[in-house]
């Protein structure tokens, strides 16, 4: 037990710093993908709510397809698919072999595109749960469209969407473990490296689980606080 603790310590032979750096990478790639997905989600939700027929079909196709295909396949598509585009270009500059997007960008893109579908559904649901009276009041008072969106629609939708967004974030965080297939040194990849180095796979994957659980719990607390903050003044 003590040996195990020493192994994850911060001494010269300790895996502690490496695991923590990997955890930072996990949070970074998950957050970047979540943000990208949020942007996509707003666009797709807008297309579903206010778009014309072709836009609506496109948006519906996007959300149904991306929610039915395993994330792992999407990650492969981004990782190897970007290689398809980048390898010829890199060869023009004298590179050799297979060149693709760095794991971080490929992972961020894949997570963003997948979570965008879930974001869109959450945001659309939240929009419909805002009472129309409040939106009509803003129009009646003479607010221009952008001001109304910024001051009224966005905060109200955010309030209703927060619990759903919290769920999407938890999902994204767990999905990010799959990005280890691209070689990005996030928690899972670091645990693989550690376990092949020390031949103690259980210890390392267990530590990975503990790290993920810690991040999940902390982000759950943050989302709770946000929900509390954004529902001030609600009856």
């Amino acid at each position, binding site marked *: 037990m003590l040996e195990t603790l020493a192994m994850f310590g911060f001494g010269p032979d300790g895996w502690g710093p490496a695991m923590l750096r990997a955890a930072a990478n996990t949070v970074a790639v998950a957050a970047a993908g979540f943000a990208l997905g949020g942007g996509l989600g707003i666009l797709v939700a807008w297309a579903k709510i206010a778009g014309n027929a072709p836009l609506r079909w496109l948006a519906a196709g996007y959300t149904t397809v991306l929610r039915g295909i395993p994330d792992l*396949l999407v990650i492969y598509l981004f990782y*190897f698919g970007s290689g398809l585009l980048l390898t010829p270009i890199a060869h023009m500059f004298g590179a050799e072999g297979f060149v693709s997007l760095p794991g971080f960008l490929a992972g961020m893109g894949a997570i963003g595109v997948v979570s965008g579908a879930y974001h869109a559904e959450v945001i659309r649901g939240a929009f419909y749960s805002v009472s129309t009276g409040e939106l009509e009041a803003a129009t009646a008072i003479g607010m221009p469209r952008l001001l109304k969106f910024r001051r009224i629609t966005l905060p109200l939708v955010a309030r209703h969407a927060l619990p759903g967004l919290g769920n999407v974030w938890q999902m994204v965080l767990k999905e990010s473990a*799959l990005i280890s297939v691209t070689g990005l040194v996030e928690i899972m990849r670091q645990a693989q490296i550690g376990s092949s180095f020390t031949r103690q796979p259980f210890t390392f994957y267990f530590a990975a689980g503990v790290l993920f659980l810690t991040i*999940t719990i902390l982000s759950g607390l943050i989302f709770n606080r946000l929900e509390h903050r954004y529902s001030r003044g609600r009856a």
Partner: protein
Amino acid sequence: MDFEFLSQTFLKLLHGIPVTLELATLSLMLGACLALAFAVIRVRRIRPLNWLVIGYVYVFRGTPLLVQLFIIYYGLAQFPEIRSSFAWTYLREPYWCALLALTLNTAAYGSEILRGALLSVPRGQIMAARACGMSGLLLFRRISFPIALRQALPAYGNEFILMIKATSLASLVTLADVTGIAARIIAETYRPVEVFVAAGTIYLALSYGLILLVRLAEIRLNPDQREPAPGAGVSAARKEVNP
């Protein structure tokens, strides 16, 4: 896009469907049994077990499935006690490890769905059953469970689709499911787009098949919400009295 390559890939990927479907159906069935037990323990607040289940659900929903799978497949080999026990004949096979990880994972999510459903059974229904003299298992089997099942089905349908998608992780412990074969073809040919389209089509078809089955089950389980058959006066009258 090269359609000949696409159709060849598609045919190769079809060989992965049995593994994908088997893992999904077996883990869902086993997982649902576990989930039901867990949900009953939570709802009845059976003391020491109650705490265990809460912890179990928290841990399994808070960590990625990949971590759970790797702990079972790679991690357990670290202990000589396990390697020398009878369980090793199963635990060294990637198939059983994937099945175990998927089952434990879906049991955690499923138990929350079933718990919500059991809690939403109207008290009046249970009191009526008690007034008729039903108790214990009979009441659960005839009243609580069927009503909870109706409530749970839409949410559990989502879980079905999530599990179809989750089986793709089995490819990371060397199993040749649809994703595993797809990954191999991509690595051999470097043609990710065609392979993605072919594999994606298969997964979408499986998901939609499942959605269809769930819809049919929903219709079957909610006879009171069905359109009355033409000329079926009795059921139409009943519908008016009890909407």
